């Protein structure tokens, strides 16, 4: 605490404030803010009716349903298995733990297009997994199932990496106290451990969900991309661009951008909540 107040007193001793802040704002404006504002200005050239028709066409609506539905499902799967993986990595010792821990970040490091073609190769009718499922009438590639699977792959690290540090910091004394007071292990989990990791879980969910909504590379190979059935919203934007319908593409992009902003605000609020709850690293 004293460190913090000391730090606050003598700030401008260090040189370079104007230079670094100026450069930060300039670069941010040139690369991010001005280009993003182009999207808004382009949208203003549309009348409200044009905008509304562009963003509510039946094919576009179907794509929202798929994108948001599949992203939600995938994020839910990630919460369950992400918590499990984080739990196992923090609480248990087993052979090859460091390798498994490193592997969690694979979806961050593997280019999405590579993930897309390799998941497709696994799940297609003649693939390693697909060949055993197809005879039973289970089809995982080239339909919405494939979209969910690709998004589970993409979103996994978010939940694991937000929950893991919180679990590591969790005070075992609380659990010991609960056990001493006669709680079963399950009660200890639901009443003591779960409440302390809930903010992190929710943050991880929101991050995985946000990432899934914008995801393109891994999905398009496995989705099959049938209009009305397995066409995601980013693909709608590309489709409109390819037909030189810049206004339509922009309108749909603005809808996606607005959702991204809302999610970003929610994630920020969740992280602030998490910090207040337990000083967890973010």
């Amino acid at each position, binding site marked *: 605490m004293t460190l913090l107040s000391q730090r606050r007193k003598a700030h401008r001793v260090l040189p370079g404030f104007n230079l670094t802040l100026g450069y930060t704002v300039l670069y941010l404006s040139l690369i991010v803010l001005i280009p993003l504002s182009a999207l808004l200005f382009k949208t203003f050239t549309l009348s409200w009716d044009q905008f509304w028709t562009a963003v509510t066409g039946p094919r576009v609506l179907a794509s929202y349903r798929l994108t948001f539905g599949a992203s939600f499902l995938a994020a839910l799967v990630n919460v369950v298995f992400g918590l499990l993986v984080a739990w196992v990595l923090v609480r248990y010792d087993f052979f090859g733990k460091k390798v498994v821990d490193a592997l969690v970040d*694979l979806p961050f490091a593997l*280019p999405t297009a590579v993930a897309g073609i390799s*998941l497709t190769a696994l799940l297609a009718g003649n*693939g390693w997994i697909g060949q055993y499922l197809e005879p039973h009438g289970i089809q995982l590639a080239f339909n919405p199932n494939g979209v969910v699977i690709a998004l589970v792959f993409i979103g996994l690290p978010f939940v694991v990496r937000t929950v893991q*540090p919180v679990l590591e*910091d969790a005070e*075992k004394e609380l659990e010991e106290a609960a056990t001493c007071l006669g709680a079963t292990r399950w009660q200890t989990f639901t009443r003591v451990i779960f409440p302390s990791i809930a903010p992190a879980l929710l943050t991880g969910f929101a991050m995985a969900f946000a990432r899934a909504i914008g995801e*393109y590379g891994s999905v398009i190979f496995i989705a099959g991309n049938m209009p009305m059935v397995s066409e995601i919203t980013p693909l709608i934007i590309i489709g409109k661009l390819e037909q030189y319908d810049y206004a339509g593409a922009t309108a749909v*992009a603005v809808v996606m951008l607005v959702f991204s902003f809302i999610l970003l605000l929610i994630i920020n609020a969740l992280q602030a909540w998490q910090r207040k709850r337990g000083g967890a690293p*973010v």
Partner: protein
Amino acid sequence: MSGAVSSLGKPVRRAQSGTTEPTWVRWLLLSIALGFMFLFLVLPLAAVFTEALRKGFDAYFEAFKEPDAWSAIRLTLITAAIAVPLNLVFGVAAAWAIAKYEFKGKAFLTTLVDLPFSVSPVVAGLIYVLIFGAQGWFGPWLQAHDIKIVFAVPGIVLATVFVTFPFIARELIPLMQAQGTEEEQAAIVLGATGWQTFWHVTLPNIKWGLIYGVILCNARAMGEFGAVSVVSGHIRGQTNTMPLHVEILYNEYQSVAAFAVASLLALLALVTLVIKSVVEWQHEREMRAAVDLPPERPGA
């Protein structure tokens, strides 16, 4: 005491105490978790290499004899070689401004730095088409002066810079915030210039975070697909990066060639993960060494 503010700083693990699950529950949880990881992470990774080698090593290396593959590799390397240093300079400048000073709107600025992460890659590509494309703001002027940005290399670089924008900054900001400014202030008081202070005091403190951010930024820069695909125009041998080349080969049913190029990208991902883990272990070791030192300040 919270020594672990950055994503690098994992705290030293506590000793296992009496509170744990029955053995069968532990085995069950462990097998489900590992099974899930095997299905979703190991199998796809293995599939890349087996599909690439399906017809043997000759067919595999055949894929790299094509000049288009080489130009894709070259373009990917050029793009990363421009985008990563640009974002490195920005990341250090932004982290210095945000972590070392207090000013109004700091939280807002930090949020803006993170913004590109929440924008869909396809939208990221689209914004540059809207500005530099034939019908865009600067389109007519660029055409009059015969400058190509969209559907050419500059557009690919710009889109890549956008999607990799926050990587290094967001790694450095929490790290530098946790380290405070005492050491830098001491250096300045002792007569060091700002540049000397940065070079001899700040940089050694943030080096692991810096490497960490750079390799993640590089992996994304080389692997970006969505944003680049919008601005590239898919001209073979000219504006195809490696991921786009993979897509073209795959769509032409040249499966082995597609997976061969993809296997290079998968290798890049593996190397990235290895460097990342080494950096984390190194950082953890240094933190532990710092903890083991006797306390310097009496009292407090």
